[in-house]
């Protein structure tokens, strides 16, 4: 585990073409800066994500976890820095050239982002109809297969408004894997769910990793989820990686900020500030 207080590792170089390592770097962020107005969200962030690994991005709210995720698929462009998917630098690509790259990704949004004017079937079929020339019968079979993977076969005719929060996320997950992506990005997959439903989502993430051999990038502040699904955990603070390691490294970390986050305890300074405001 890297020392939380230590500066980040030197900027790595982009991956060499034709690298033959067993699990080469699939996604790479190099010195990424991003601000919204005067608010600095990412402040020189470096991160490598290897193929087929399950990496969890941790950090308090507002530290840029979701912003990081959106940079990986080109939904946001960095103010400075570089973003790579395999050997391709994607942060400089125009929208149309990004589209073929995005077909390698599945993205589970925090609230699911299901199209509420379409049924469950139409939602899951949407990417297939857009990007594959499957006959309609094939689409029906594939949608049923994807929904079965998330335990929701038979809900094809329902509208998103008729589903519970957990079911919406599972349908959104079925849609995210509709094109058999190489990378699945999860933005707060368990937020807003009760512990049982949250565990179902965690199990699904593990199942998809095993069955589809995808790279998973999970943004969360749910430690139970992080320990369950992550091969590697990365913690952000003030727009930078301050710690990374295995779940065991985080469990036994001596770093105060990591310990407090893992244990869910506010710092004395934060509590003092709260008291001052209350007065």
């Amino acid at each position: 585990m890297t020392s939380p207080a230590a500066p980040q590792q030197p900027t790595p170089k982009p991956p060499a073409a034709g690298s033959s390592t067993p699990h080469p770097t699939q996604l790479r962020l190099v010195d990424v800066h991003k601000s919204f107005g005067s608010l600095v969200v990412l402040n020189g962030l470096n991160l490598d994500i290897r193929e087929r690994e399950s990496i969890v991005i941790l950090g308090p709210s507002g530290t840029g976890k979701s912003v990081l995720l959106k940079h990986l698929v080109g939904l946001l462009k960095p103010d400075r820095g570089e973003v790579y998917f395999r050997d391709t630098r994607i942060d400089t690509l125009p929208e149309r050239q990004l589209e073929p790259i995005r077909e390698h990704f599945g993205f589970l949004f925090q609230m699911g982002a299901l199209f509420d004017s379409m049924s469950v079937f139409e939602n899951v079929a949407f990417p297939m109809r857009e990007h594959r020339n499957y006959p309609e019968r094939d689409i029906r079979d594939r949608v049923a297969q994807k929904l079965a993977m998330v335990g929701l076969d038979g809900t094809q005719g329902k509208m998103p408004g008729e589903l519970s929060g957990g079911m919406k996320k599972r349908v959104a997950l079925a849609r995210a894997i509709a094109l058999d992506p190489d990378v699945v990005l999860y933005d707060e997959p368990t937020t807003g769910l009760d512990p049982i439903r949250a565990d179902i989502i965690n199990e699904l993430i593990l199942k998809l990793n095993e069955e589809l051999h995808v790279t998973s990038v999970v943004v969360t502040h749910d430690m139970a989820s992080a320990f369950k699904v992550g091969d590697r955990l990365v913690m952000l603070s003030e727009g930078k990686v301050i710690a990374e390691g295995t779940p065991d490294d985080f469990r036994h970390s001596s770093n105060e900020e990591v310990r407090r986050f893992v244990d869910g305890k506010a710092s004395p300074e934060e509590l003092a500030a709260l008291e001052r405001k209350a007065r």
Partner: protein
Amino acid sequence: MTAVEQVGKRALDWVDALGDYGRFTGSIFAWVFRGPGRFARRQLLSQMYEVGTLSIPVVMITGAFIGAVLAIEADPQFRAIGLESRIGSVINISVVKQIGPVLTGVMLAGRVGGALTAELGTMKVTEQIDALRAMATDPVRALAVPRFGACLIMMPILTIFSDLLGMFGGWFMAVQMLGVDAASYWQNSKDSLEIYTINTGFIKALFFGAAIASIGCYKGFHCGSGAQGVGRACTEAFVTSFITILVMNFFIAMAMNSIYTMFWPNTGSILG
């Protein structure tokens, strides 16, 4: 920041937004010509129903009453100079050239423009537009193009309904209620309404439809966060569409009049 700097910043922001809107509208046209794909084509029919079919009653009602009001207001003036038989030409020219397309445009801006903005704005704040982009689908192609196409197709059709009911309202009030002679009413109407006049109304309708859809979609795609952001975008969409319709109406009237006098110089101006 000084007052001068503030004015300068506002002007720059306005120019920036105008350029952004121009680029957005350009991308809609680019997708229309490039072919928007299966999803957008399927959406077109349902959007035509939303935009057009559901607007017919409101457009017909307003058209009929405006035609009737025109007859009520014009009748005493024409009767005073003994020209009440010519009231039909004034009502019908006004309805076909000006009131039909403008009123239909305003009604569509209120009923459909606001709804477009609210729908797309809600999709934006609930990350549905980001979801489309993440699924390698251009949201302009999938969402804006079918709505734009529906407004462009349905606006002239709605204008026909508005025109017909405006004519009916004018006829009913003038002939049935105020006692104007029906034969001379229709004869004068027929003599004064040229194909060019009718086409002027349709050309206006096309431009208004394009403006309502592009402004509504643009505001929806660029709305602020939360319910307040969506609400503000809806208001802005309606106000901007309304002003744009009135300004466009003036410039199209000028252009159509210039074209008319250029091709038919001896028939006099038909400003409108």
